[in-house]
């Protein structure tokens, strides 16, 4: 596995929806490369025969009774939103100008 390049960090930041200035990329790229190199050793130890563990204490078929219960009032659900209108979350335009 190869180390992380500055261009990789720029691409990943775009995928993760985090704007990064040149200064951010300069600062974080070097640190991230060190971390990626350090964690790459996970691939050294476990062979094909070792199963993966996703949860420490596996439980299955966890259900609760299918009954109606009180939920957040619309007003409460919207109270923390940066902007709301007519009982809905209001967002900036979704499509670009020329769409």
């Amino acid at each position, binding site marked *: *596995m190869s180390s*992380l390049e500055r261009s*990789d*960090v720029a691409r*990943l*930041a*775009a*995928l*993760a*929806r*985090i*704007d*990064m200035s040149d200064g*951010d990329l300069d*600062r*974080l790229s070097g*640190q*991230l490369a*060190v*971390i*990626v190199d*350090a*964690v*790459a*050793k*996970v*691939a*050294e*130890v*476990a062979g094909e025969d*070792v*199963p*993966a*563990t*996703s*949860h*420490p*204490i596996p*439980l299955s078929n*966890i259900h*609760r009774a299918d009954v109606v219960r009180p939920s*957040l009032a619309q007003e*409460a*659900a919207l*109270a*923390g*939103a*940066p*902007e709301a209108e007519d009982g809905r*979350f209001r*967002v*900036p*335009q*979704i*499509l*670009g100008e020329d769409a």
Partner: protein
Amino acid sequence: MTDWTRASAADMAAAMRRGEVTSVELTRAHLERISAVDGDVHAFLHIDADGALATAREVDAARDAGEELPALAGVPIAIKDVLVTEGLPTTAGSRILEGWIPPYDGTVTKRIRAARMPILGKTNMDEFAMGSSTEHSGYGPTHNPWDLERIPGGSGGGSAAALAAFEAPLAVGSDTGGSIRQPASVTATVGVKPTYGGVSRFGAIALASSLDQLGPCGRTVLDTALLHEVMAGHDEMDATSLDEPVPPVVDAAHDGARGDLSGVRIGVVKEISGADGGFQDGVKQRFEESLEHLRSMGAEIVEVSCPSFEYALAAYYVILPSEASSNLAKFDSVRFGMRVEKGNVERTMAATRAEGFGDEVKRRIILGTYALSAGYYDAYYGSAQKVRTLVQRDFDAAFADVDVLVSPTTPTTPFKLGERIDDPMAMYLNDIATIPANLAGIPGMSLPAGLAEEDGLPVGFQILAPAREDARLYRVGAALERALTDEWGGALTAQAPELEVK
């Protein structure tokens, strides 16, 4: 006049029952202490004096009316800002949630309210619990009451510092890789990460869902056990919650305090006990002395080896960022928190996350996005999950032979604020001894082992038990606490330097 802020939670509760003090007096004493010292310590992000006093007045009135009350009714508590509290600001230490007031209570919040404990406020933490020093808080670091120039640990540094500074007798913490135990270690307090699923995570702002666990923090083992019983138990709002009885942790703490450990087998984990270097001399010295105490109470001490622990830190720093990058996608500038307008919704989202998240959060989101991306998934995430299996197998093999495992909680005493902030890998190494428990889902405790010879700063002793055997931590912990406090002539926190009262 008694300074109630120095008392244990158990003593406060008993004194209220005897009518020697009221909850209003206790709550006021802690609020005054917070006003006097928190300017320097900065353990709290938000203080709710009115709410705490209102609860205290209700408890006092109920007691006067002869009502039956829960064990800790009227004992004040602080809550880590990772847990949502209806009507009280909750930020998880992040600027992206500045000013957000949750419209609901987390399950643990509900249980604390049902236990009728006045909530003093919300404690500082590394942003979204990512860190070991609280220096990654969006609101400035917390300072260690033992030395204000030093870190209080993290991510739950605020909760631990509040206890060590006598601003609260009890606090809620959360532990994803050591965020309860490491702050307890560096502040000479007690902290427990329960078995995964032992305490509901509903309403705890998620960092890494397969690792996160809320837990109790206190100044004594018994106090921590009392809070553990308030917080724990099945909750159908959390699909990973164990539908089993709460382990008898309070009984175990009383049992351990009798000082008899005959027949208990204790394993020292070679890989996380400094056998191969990397641990401060004073830490190893206090650890060895604690082992001597355990031996003199009848325990048998053996060395065990967990070879895959060498890979635990690497596996953790793949699994945690992967889960975090997914969990933090909800901070999208639409439903709650900050919004930085910049053209369309997608550009607004990217601008908001750039402004609202700190560097550590950005590092881990990018790392997680990388580890989960096509072509790298098997090499990183897939391999890390296999290491997780190996760590579990090491624990299973060890616990087949011993009742509990022990190690120093951290390799060093608290370092200076700023010392490791630009070196993420050095910061991550703080958690080398605490991380394996989270990967395996087992419970762990840290309690004070004394002060290191070379710098006079706190050293923590870690105890680990098999899943669902949380009570063993309390039995062994209470026994060791008794032996050590007999030697010290009282609690270690009493030796902390006096803070300047303002």
